[in-house]
């Protein structure tokens, strides 16, 4: 019944003895985030009647699980990019601003003009959709390049370097739209964020494609190792002959590209671009998702699958809070408490304290 596609949950397999396999499973870094997600899902199954129900309407798959996955799509994309940035000891707090900027560019270029064709009113895009999407994506890449050059070239602290774009980016987006909300009328654009392909929301395919491409890059090439090396010790990595500056620029460009895609999904889903509120605080949710997934904020250790699970935990939590009729405002308090618990339990000091107690 549960048709979720979760590459992260496929455990390493091989000819391992059952006992060793069990200990491998218990020590697997994804165990805790996956368990947390499972607990949430079980809670939902108990509290929300029909939580696991999936039904097919008009050839589309409907149900709470699909809904959660669909809504988590922008966050999952942002978390993917953020994972690599955090793995190099960096942080990118301009994600929300990039979402707003790319979404705004796409929405403005596409817009939509009504044309009456044989008596049937039809909306036509102002700019060909391919060009518009490429332009929006290009803007996101430029944002990433800017962040990357500030961090790797001028050597600003990542939080400060991306703070600049966080402040100015949203301002630029508002400048483009004159502070107005831009509405899109062009039908084909909506497919990106609210269309269905083979019964599943199209946004999920976007996420799956980006995740697959990233996993391939990180696991099948040396890139993953390089990123880890930079995160663990940037100086040693440079002395070992890695081009750390290029690597760091790459991860920031990658992060902004993910954010740009997320911006396209968001604007297409709500059929408009709101420069003020699109992607507001998304960077914080993305950082939270990455932390929940077991990636260390100190750099080096990272898990893409973990970040995906982290994003799903956040979205499931939000969904649960809404569906239980708890005021949505409580969401922030719950998130805050979760961050505190996760961070404290991750810290070496806390583990040392536990060991001393149990000894």
């Amino acid at each position, binding site marked *: 019944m549960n048709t979720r596609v979760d590459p992260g949950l496929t455990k390493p397999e091989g000819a391992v003895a059952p006992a060793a396999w069990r200990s491998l499973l218990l020590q697997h870094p994804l165990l805790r985030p996956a368990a947390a997600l499972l607990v949430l899902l079980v809670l939902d199954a108990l509290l929300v009647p029909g939580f696991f129900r999936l039904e097919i309407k008009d050839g589309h798959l409907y149900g709470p699980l699909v809904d959660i996955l669909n809504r988590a799509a922008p966050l999952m994309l942002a978390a993917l990019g953020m994972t690599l940035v955090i793995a190099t000891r960096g942080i990118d707090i301009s994600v929300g601003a990039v979402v707003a900027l790319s979404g705004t560019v796409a929405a403005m270029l596409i817009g939509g003009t009504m044309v009456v064709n044989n008596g049937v009113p039809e909306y036509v895009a102002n700019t060909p959709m391919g060009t518009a999407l490429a332009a929006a994506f290009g803007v996101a890449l430029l944002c990433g390049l800017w962040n990357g050059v500030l961090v790797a070239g001028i050597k600003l602290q990542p939080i400060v370097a991306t703070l600049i774009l966080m402040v100015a980016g949203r301002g630029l987006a508002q400048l483009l739209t004159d502070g107005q909300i831009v509405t899109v009328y062009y039908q084909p654009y909506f497919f990106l964020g609210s269309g269905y392909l083979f019964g599943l929301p199209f946004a999920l395919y976007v996420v799956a494609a980006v995740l697959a491409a990233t996993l391939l890059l990180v696991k099948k090439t040396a890139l993953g190792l390089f990123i880890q090396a930079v995160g663990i010790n940037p100086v040693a990595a440079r002395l070992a002959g890695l081009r750390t500056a290029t690597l760091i620029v790459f991860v920031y460009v990658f992060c902004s590209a993910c954010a740009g895609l997320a911006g396209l999904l968001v604007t297409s889903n709500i059929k408009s671009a709101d420069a003020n509120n699109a992607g507001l605080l998304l960077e914080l949710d993305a*950082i939270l998702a990455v932390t929940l997934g077991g990636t260390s904020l100190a750099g080096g250790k990272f898990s893409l699958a973990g970040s995906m699970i982290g994003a799903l935990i956040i979205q499931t939590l939000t969904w649960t809070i809404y569906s239980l009729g708890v005021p949505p405002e409580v969401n922030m308090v719950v998130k805050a408490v979760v961050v505190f618990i996760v961070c404290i339990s991750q810290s070496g000091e806390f583990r040392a304290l536990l060991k001393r107690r149990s000894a």
Partner: protein
Amino acid sequence: MSAIASGARGLSAAPWFTSLVTVILLVVMLGIGGAAYPGFLSMQVGFNLLIDNAFLLVVAIGMGFVILSGGIDLSVGAVLALSTMLTAWLLQNAHWHPAAVILAVLLLGAMFGGAMGLIIHLFKLQPFIVTLAGMFLARGLCYLVSVESITIDQPFFVAVSQTQIPFLGGFLSPGAVIALVALLLAVWLAHFTAFGRAVYAVGGNEQSAAMMGLNVGATRVGVYALSGLCAALGGVLFSFYMLSGYGLHGQGLELDAIAAVVIGGTLLSGGYGYIAGALSGVLVLGAIQTLIAFDGTLSSWWTKIVIGGLLFVFCVVQRIMGGRAK
């Protein structure tokens, strides 16, 4: 020639050089404003800069201490909002005496900040992530108090908000006076007390500070408690100014405060800068807003773009100068 060059180098290497640049920038901005718009250079326009940004000045002072100690506090905007909310709720719904309300709010703010400092120190966590969680918590707590904005009509608060204190031919608001007093106290705390010297030492090099026998933990908790206290005081001033409590107050304020501190000449890596720089930083931010308001054709988002640009310039200048010093 070489004497001038070495003189210039000596000048740019002086610790107060960036602060000087900020002051010159402020004077240039006011000059441009005065040349372009009649009436811009009146005393009252200058005072209004202080009146409208009193809360930001107080918050930036707290942020200044945190950044000097090598940390960062992202929760100040949320703590300010929570303070306005608590102030409004305690006044309007619980009918406490104003003095008790202000005291309680300030105490809670200091405790909130202190608790974050304690977590940062005990578990060796990054200040960034802990204060981020603190930000979520404080904003969430706002909405637990009330989702709606609460209007304050308590006579004392209304009276304070309408008071004008005559000063040098113009007037100041009580909020602006409180902010200036807070600034003087903060300068004294930073430069004439053991706590202030400990903050600089911890920000300069934590290990050396610990080896010198300074109590790093107490200093850190103290710094975040001070920042929480300043954010809460900013919240009280904001309630004087707006006469309401609302969970959306002070959104993005932490970034304005960080920007003010950086523009004021404090190095984000810690240990270097002046608390008084917060005043020039806040005035520059205020002057940008005033210029844009005077122009009338520029929209408010230009403020964000200009602040972003200024942040960029100052960070790069700091970076280049820091590189030369080493």
